[in-house]
């Protein structure tokens, strides 16, 4: 990974283009991807223009310049153009997205940045992957290439998609694979929307397992947002009565913004980090078997409530740590008895012959022989964490933004008990502190975590998909387009492996 800080000591003052951030190209896929993408760019730019940065003018300007370079390309008539490629198999959503952006007056999408067809993927992963993918490969890749070429310095891809539908999921998997082939040295982070547990789409579990298993091979990191969790934030923290997808997407965009907006590195407080994706990957994905990342962001509340609230870093960080330990999705879920809540049905077996995951209570495919993954301890050897019933992490990144940020004490996150035994906290934990406040929050703390957070949702989806698969329901819809039962079985196998790996932490 590139590091800019070796230069920062020598060159100070103005920010020549060398100092500006490397750029990220966003690929928005399907209805969900496009609706979210719009909110993300909107949130990034709004924050960047915000007058409540609580820092010096020069600081603010550097922040703005960095944000702009990262996500937008040169102004055309003064209007920034999002570095994005919009892909959908039917036109309604893209048309809406384009016009909403243009209406904002603050930014817009490139005129020729869209790829659209007339007929959607029908919620069919196989159709998105096997039909739309190959058919439109050239056009889509060509659009992406043009966008990449516009970047002076390219950091990587941010691909926004849902798992439940047909385009985002199937075509998304196909495009990611193509990016892997055509840009083997560039980073790819997929932002995946986990559907509501109670159906949005009946075949969502099939589409999800096919997507996840494919992405695990071709993507570098999977940043997950669960609709259920974000919905709760809207309901309980934001007090929104009639929650729309717009509301949900805005909360999501806020969380992503707080991760992706420019930050200082620990080493150099003079300039913003240059390589957002590279830095995230480096800190959060130390081993390719562990790619699932989740985001927690506090505080998060309605504007009315915000006016009456004050926070201390100590308070925020304590809360965040508790959320990490107890696998809470949002602040309110952390009660005073959080440890009791998190205390497990986990029965630790001291018998090394039983497979780790069975003792952990997650029963997967009945493997009798399973080779240990390279770099990891052989199966059967328990880590101490099991006794403590913690949510065990592979890596954590805390990003702090706002007033008096240097005084924030993050020692609590360096506790070895939080991490798997084969990593030392000094390697597994990182913190980025930035003076410039984010989006009206005087202080905000974000946790990006590679931990067991997503094990249960993943296991649930795999279970439901398996349940349906056992009865062969809907399979004919997939085999029609070349996705056979073997492909399903492969997906089950891969994901069982992922679940097991995480359980063994």
């Amino acid at each position, binding site marked *: 990974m590139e590091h800019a800080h070796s230069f920062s000591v020598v060159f100070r003052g103005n920010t020549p283009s060398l100092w500006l951030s490397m750029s990220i190209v966003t690929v928005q896929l399907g209805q969900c991807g496009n609706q979210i993408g719009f909110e993300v760019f909107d949130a990034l730019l709004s924050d960047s223009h915000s007058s409540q940065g609580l820092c010096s003018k020069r600081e603010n300007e550097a922040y703005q310049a960095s944000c702009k370079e990262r996500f937008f390309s040169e102004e055309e008539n003064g209007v920034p153009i999002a570095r994005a490629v919009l892909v959908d198999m*039917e036109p309604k959503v893209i048309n809406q997205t384009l016009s909403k952006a243009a209406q904002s007056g603050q930014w817009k999408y490139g005129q020729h940045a869209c790829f659209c067809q007339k007929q*959607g993927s029908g*919620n069919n992963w196989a159709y998105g992957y096997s039909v739309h993918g190959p058919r439109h490969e050239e056009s889509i890749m060509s659009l992406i290439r043009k966008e990449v070429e516009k970047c002076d310095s390219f950091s990587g891809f941010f691909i926004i998609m849902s798992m439940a539908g*047909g385009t985002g999921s199937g075509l998304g998997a196909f495009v990611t694979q193509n990016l892997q082939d055509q840009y083997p040295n560039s980073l790819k982070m997929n932002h995946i929307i986990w559907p509501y547990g*109670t159906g949005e789409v009946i075949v969502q579990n099939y589409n999800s397992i096919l997507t996840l298993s494919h992405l695990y091979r071709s993507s570098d990191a999977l940043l997950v947002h669960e609709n259920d969790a974000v919905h709760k934030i809207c309901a309980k923290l934001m007090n929104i009565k*009639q929650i729309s997808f717009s509301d949900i997407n805005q909360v999501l965009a806020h969380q992503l913004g707080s991760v992706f907006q420019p930050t200082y590195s620990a080493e150099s407080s003079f300039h913003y980090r240059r390589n957002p994706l590279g830095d995230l990957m480096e800190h959060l994905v130390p081993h390719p078997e562990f790619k699932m990342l989740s985001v927690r962001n506090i505080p998060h509340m309605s504007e009315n409530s915000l006016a009456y609230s004050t926070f201390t870093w100590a308070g925020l960080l304590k809360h965040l740590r508790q959320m990490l330990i107890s696998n809470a999705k949002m602040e309110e879920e952390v009660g005073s008895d959080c440890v009791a809540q998190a205390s497990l*049905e986990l029965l630790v077996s001291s018998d090394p012959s039983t497979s780790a995951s069975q003792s952990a209570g*997650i029963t997967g495919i009945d493997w009798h022989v399973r080779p240990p993954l390279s770099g990891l301890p052989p199966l059967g050897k328990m880590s101490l964490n099991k006794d403590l019933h913690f949510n065990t992490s592979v890596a954590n990144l805390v990003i702090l933004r706002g007033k008096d940020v240097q005084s924030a004490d993050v020692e609590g996150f360096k506790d070895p008990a939080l991490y798997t035994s084969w990593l030392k906290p000094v390697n597994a934990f990182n913190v980025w502190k930035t003076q410039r406040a984010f989006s009206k929050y005087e202080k905000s703390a974000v946790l990006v975590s590679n931990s067991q957070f997503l094990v249960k949702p993943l296991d649930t989806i795999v279970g439901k998909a398996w349940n349906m698969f*056992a009865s062969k329901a809907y399979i004919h819809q997939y085999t029609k387009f070349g996705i056979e039962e073997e492909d399903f079985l492969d997906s089950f196998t891969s994901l069982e492996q992922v679940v097991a790996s995480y359980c063994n932490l």
Partner: protein
Amino acid sequence: MTQSVVVQVGQCGNQIGCCFWDLALREHAAVNQKGIYDEAISSFFRNVDTRVVGDGGSISKGKICSLKARAVLIDMEEGVVNEILQGPLRDVFDTKQLITDISGSGNNWAVGHKVFGSLYQDQILEKLRKSAEHCDCLQCFFIIHSMGGGTGSGLGTFLLKVLEDEFPEVYRFVTSIYPSGEDDVITSPYNSMLAMKELNEHADCVLPIDNQSLFDIISKIDLMVNSGKLGTTVKPNSLVTSSSGTLKKRHKKPFDAMNNIVANLLLNLTSSARFEGSLNMDLNEISMNLVPFPQLHYLVSSLTPLYTLTDVNIPPRRLDQMFSDAFSKDHQLLQADPKHSLYLACALMVRGNVQISDLRRNIERLKPSLQFVSWNQEGWKTSLCSVPPVGHSHSLLALANNTCVKPTFMELKERFMRLYKKKAHLHHYLQVEGVEKSCFTEAVSSLSALIQEYDQLDTTKNMPNLELRKYISRFSAVSLTYTRCNPQHLPFK
């Protein structure tokens, strides 16, 4: 955006079709104030410059010149079609898209299917191809017909095979009117049975509807409208049975109210594909989500609300009431009770000012009282379309793939057997060339097999997961080499 073509066959099919086009125009007129020919309108209408002679008149953008329905009208009698062509909708139909005869099918499926089928096959093919050529991206054929007569039933189902062969990638959605118990066509059981086999084999999706249900809904509405309760006046154009202004009162035919319900069904079915919304649902998603096995493609529909009250002070629990109503047997367009049968899948298509939280709240609320098949416990497909129907602020169309269709099929079989055992009227069928006894026996097997599928599913109600595998193993083509245990305990809640 895709286009759909409506193929209306027989007297019933054409009458319903006529109502459909009337309401479609009304809907688009209400939404499209500027008179611009946009993609939403193009899903069902062509924009034609009538000054141009021949085929060159199509205009793809800009102001609306003259709208022509993407329809093919087929009837073996001239009465109904002629009336349409002389009525207020005459300019909406392209006279080249009609196929008529004079003698009628005599309420005989065999005449409709075999005689007229072979006689008009080429013409039918030609008209269908023409209508497809006018489409940029044809997604779906909507066939409207009745099951009990001769033309709609026989020729209507003959069409299905033609469509399957000629346009294999285009969906075939069939709206079928099933005969009620007191149907006055004696041979309707024969016609329906023979048609069922075709529907089983060549339709992607069938929406069965019966006259009795439509009639009951109308009675309900009349009761409401005429009840004269203080403060509850109904908005006239909001009635699910109302027409737009184009069909003047004195032309109102006896079945208009009932036909309008079906017309509204089709409009709501396609609304999320035509108009924008926060969670779109295209027509190809209906089949994908609601048809778990190819043979089980019969969907029971319900439409709510049936009317809007003009009193705007009605409290918001009206919204939740709409969801509850969708599951009551009084609102189904078929004599069926989905609440007390087994759901294989359910789709909720919402229009208007309804958000995801409203949808979720109601699903959570209603789920406990509904039974879903074990492998699809959360079998909900949902959509949110921003544009409400005319006269409403919101509406809901529920499509259920539910074993509650079984009684309809069983009754059909019973009525058929009563006639068939006595060989009553059989000779009318057997004397048609190409019809033999085997046609009947095959049709009966086909229906019996279908009924048996539903039976087997019904027995799985309330059964725990593990025992289920014995029943569902017959579906599996590949022997399962993996076993997966039920997850019992997971580290975190």
